């Protein structure tokens, strides 16, 4: 249930709002209680208004959304989600502004600090818009009605005769009078919050901003280099730290010789950081920090440390051997995750069996801004500036590491130079806090690119096996699929060896095909490096296997892969998906929508108009993730040397209601590039526990000259509730590219990346 409350008189956001402002908050929590607070807004950067959103003394208060109208008419909206290229600082405020009938040019966005009373601030899982859409609309509509009522009262006219048109003013058409929102704010603030039944949300046809393209709220500052990223935080008296982390996960310092490091100009001292106690979770990895008066000196000093390491048990990890283990496990029966019908009985009948094995390696996030954080630890409080997808996690982990209460930790959220899931894990912010405590000064920890690549929370490596029994038309009667990967839960539980329900729900427990007898399975895998979530997570390898296998079945049946894919999906229906009940109710898994995006993508891409072969081909893949249906058709040209060029990607998505179509297009264009990177060159390997890659020369990502030249993104018009858009563009890319390569060359890619298959 969404509740909107007038908090004007409760001194919320003091310092942010002038006297006479109307301030509302809206929440989904049913436990609203009184709230009182004070706080100040500090403007630490010209580019980004950093909010010191106040400490709130009522513990059960969960203000999901803050909205205020200043006497000068400025609308202030607190963004409590992280901006990392996902566009939330634009899309979320525009939802409020729409229902408020605000003039967008008069909306100001304040970045909220980490505060558990917002509820989860984890900006991952592509859920910012879908989770807050209803709440934001209701907050905006409530404020609009309060302004209308204030105007009606002032004029002594019936409320029904007053409208918020044009935006930002209330008009009384019969007498041709208007009054601005700013002038009304103080009076509106005295209004009781309207009853729910009185608050009318707009019809979609009345939307002013929702569904209309808009440039990013911060675009001008970003292009001027003025936006404050974590890397850009500077405090008076701040020290800089670079850390030599243990080369192998769980390694410890045996001895350190820091004499050369200390001779580097600018280096002040070295400080050991304790190793973690397993499970590693979000704890620092340990190692030795070099403290200096600038980043360069800290880096240089770090490189001059001579450390003898005790590498520990994970020094046995060599990914080439591990790959064989995973593949062997995938050939053996595993734990059943989901079963329909009786696949074993069907397989026992014999007939034509088709089977294949797939493999996808570890990946690193490699966001352009490596992990970085600045902390100022004082006797009774900690202030930290962090590019983080998880500011509450930053507070909790720092409090734990320093033996303080999380209420004593303030986390300011900066812009993120990319996140992709890496910056949900606050280990680097904890390092900054630990070092600030030890030095008594503010400390900025800067990870080098090498540290970033070598000590990531890696996307897991996976081996998959799929087998189908097909009928005389080549359609599957039974389907068995098994995936094996070290699970993300191993980061939190050192004994975890099976995929979590969450991971299995990412494209594995069910498939969107009409197969009467089906079982998905999962096999055990022991972790040896930190495993974490990366943009679209397990969908990457699961979609690769399932969508490639579907393509293989098509060729085995002697059919066009697109026609065959439609036949596999069938006419479409609601399928039973292992997703939470409340999700199922609002977002049923509807393969009619999946079929539609496939049909549209084939149509827009001109599927079937040109005969594949001789180094040219198209590939198609479909996948639903984060509740969004996506189909991508990839066109490839492969030259005699195996170089793959991608002239065009055509992506069609059905994400329900879309708030900012231009930003959504940008997300899917970017996802096509991200997917190309991981398909073509994405591979992290390890030798004796040490990661082999270190920078962009050996962990290559797509550049302008090898990325898809054109990515055409088409958005299905829909009135369904909003779904995710940040991640769902990624999973179809690997299978669509590999299917296209098969069409072009006849060479089947069952193992990523392409560079392992003679392609480049």
């Amino acid at each position: 249930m969404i509740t909107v409350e007038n908090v004007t008189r409760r001194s919320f956001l003091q310092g942010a709002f002038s006297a006479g402002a109307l301030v509302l908050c809206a929440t989904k929590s049913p436990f609203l209680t009184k709230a009182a607070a004070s706080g100040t807004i500090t403007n630490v950067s010209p580019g980004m208004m950093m909010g010191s959103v106040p400490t709130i003394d009522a513990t059960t208060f969960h203000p999901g959304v803050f909205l205020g109208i200043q006497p000068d008419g400025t609308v202030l909206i607190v963004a409590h989600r992280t901006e990392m290229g996902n566009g939330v600082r634009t899309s979320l405020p525009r939802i409020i502004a729409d229902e408020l009938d605000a003039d967008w040019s008069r909306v100001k966005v304040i970045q909220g600090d980490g505060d558990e009373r917002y509820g989860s601030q984890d900006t991952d899982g592509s859920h910012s818009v879908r989770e807050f859409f209803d709440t934001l609309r209701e907050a905006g509509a409530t404020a609009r009605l309060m302004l209308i009522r204030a105007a009606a009262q002032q004029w002594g006219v019936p409320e029904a005769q007053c409208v918020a048109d044009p935006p930002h003013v209330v008009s009384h058409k019969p007498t041709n009078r208007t009054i601005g929102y700013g002038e009304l704010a103080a009076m509106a603030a005295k209004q009781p919050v309207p009853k729910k039944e009185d608050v009318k949300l707009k019809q979609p046809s009345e939307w002013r901003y929702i569904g209309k393209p808009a440039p990013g709220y911060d675009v001008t500052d970003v292009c001027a280099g003025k936006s404050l990223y974590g890397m850009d935080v500077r405090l008076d008296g701040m020290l800089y730290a670079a850390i030599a982390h243990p080369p192998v996960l769980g390694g410890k310092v045996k001895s350190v010789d820091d004499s050369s490091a200390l001779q580097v100009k600018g280096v002040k001292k070295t400080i050991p950081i304790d190793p973690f106690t397993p499970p590693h979770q979000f704890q620092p990895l340990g190692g030795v920090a070099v403290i200096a008066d600038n980043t360069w000196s800290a880096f240089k000093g770090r490189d001059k440390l001579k450390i003898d390491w005790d590498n520990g048990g994970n020094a046995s990890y060599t990914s080439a051997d591990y790959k064989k283990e995973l593949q062997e496990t995938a050939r053996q029966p595993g734990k059943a995750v989901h079963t329909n019908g009786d696949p074993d009985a069907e397989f026992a009948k014999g007939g034509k069996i088709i089977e294949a094995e797939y493999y996808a390696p570890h990946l690193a996030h490699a966001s352009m801004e490596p992990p970085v954080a600045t902390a100022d630890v004082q006797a009774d409080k900690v202030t930290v500036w962090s590019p983080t997808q998880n500011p509450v996690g930053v507070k909790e982990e720092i409090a734990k590491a320093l033996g303080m209460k999380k209420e004593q930790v303030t986390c300011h959220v900066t812009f993120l130079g990319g996140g992709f899931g890496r910056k949900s894990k606050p280990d680097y912010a904890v390092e900054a806090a630990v070092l600030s405590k030890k030095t008594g000064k503010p400390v900025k920890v800067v990870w080098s690119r090498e540290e970033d690549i070598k000590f990531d929370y890696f996307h897991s490596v996976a081996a998959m096996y799929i087998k189908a029994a097909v009928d005389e038309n080549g359609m599957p009667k039974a389907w068995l699929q098994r995936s094996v990967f070290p699970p993300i839960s191993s980061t939190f539980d050192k004994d975890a060896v099976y995929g979590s329900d969450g991971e299995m729900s990412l494209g594995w427990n069910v498939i969107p095909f009409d197969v009467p007898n089906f079982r998905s399975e999962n096999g055990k895998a022991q972790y040896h490096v930190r495993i974490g979530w990366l943009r679209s997570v397990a969908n990457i390898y699961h979609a690769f296997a399932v969508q490639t296998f579907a393509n293989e079945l098509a060729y085995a049946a002697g059919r066009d892969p697109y026609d065959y894919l439609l036949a596999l999906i069938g006419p479409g229906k609601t399928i039973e998906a292992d997703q939470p009940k409340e999700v199922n109710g609002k977002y049923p898994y509807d393969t009619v929508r999946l079929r539609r995006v496939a049909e549209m993508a084939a149509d827009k891409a001109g599927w079937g108009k040109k005969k594949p072969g001789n180094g040219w081909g198209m590939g198609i893949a479909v996948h639903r993730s984060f509740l969004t249906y996506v189909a991508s058709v990839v066109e490839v040209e492969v030259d005699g040397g195996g170089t793959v060029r991608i002239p065009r990607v055509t992506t069609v998505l059905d994400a329900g209601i879309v708030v900012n179509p231009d930003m959504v297009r940008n997300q899917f264009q970017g996802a096509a590039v991200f997917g190309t990177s991981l398909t073509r060159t994405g591979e992290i390997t390890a030798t004796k526990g040490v990661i082999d890659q270190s920078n962009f020369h050996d962990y290559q990502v797509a550049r302008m000259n090898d990325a898809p030249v054109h990515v055409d993104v088409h958005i299905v018009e829909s009135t369904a509730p909003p779904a995710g858009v940040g991640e769902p563009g990624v999973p179809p890319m690997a299978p669509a590219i590999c299917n296209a390569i098969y069409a072009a060359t006849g060479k089947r890619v069952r193992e990523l990346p392409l560079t392992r298959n003679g392609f480049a």
Partner: protein
Amino acid sequence: MVHLKINGSAQTFDGDPDMPLLWYLRDILGLTGTKYGCGMALCGSCTVLENGKAIRSCTKPMSALEGHEITTIEGISTHGPHTVQKAWAEANVPQCGYCQPGQIMQTVSLLSSKPHPSDQDIDDEMAGNICRCGTYQRIRAAIHAAAKETA
């Protein structure tokens, strides 16, 4: 002692001559628009202009800059947004935006030598600038738009 000009103003530097320009700009002058991405001239996030031409500031030691003029992202928009910045905003290029100052500086350099670059020229010039968010298509469009505007 190194004497150089940063965005038109004279500066002197007497620190470690090996210090790359990037860290001088960021940590000493506080010009944080120029970003660190790789430290090996592999990603282009740190791109600035040296005497009008794009260079990677992360590998350019201060000792090599005596008498040189450096222009950073902060230096191209002292009188309002540069044509390239305007084109970027118009095309709504950025996602996270971290690499974009480098992309913009590389573009300024490109357009100064090739006012009307072809797609191939653009690909060749920009291949050293990584955008992990994948905004390449918009960057290409924005470069063409800026070229048209400059004409």
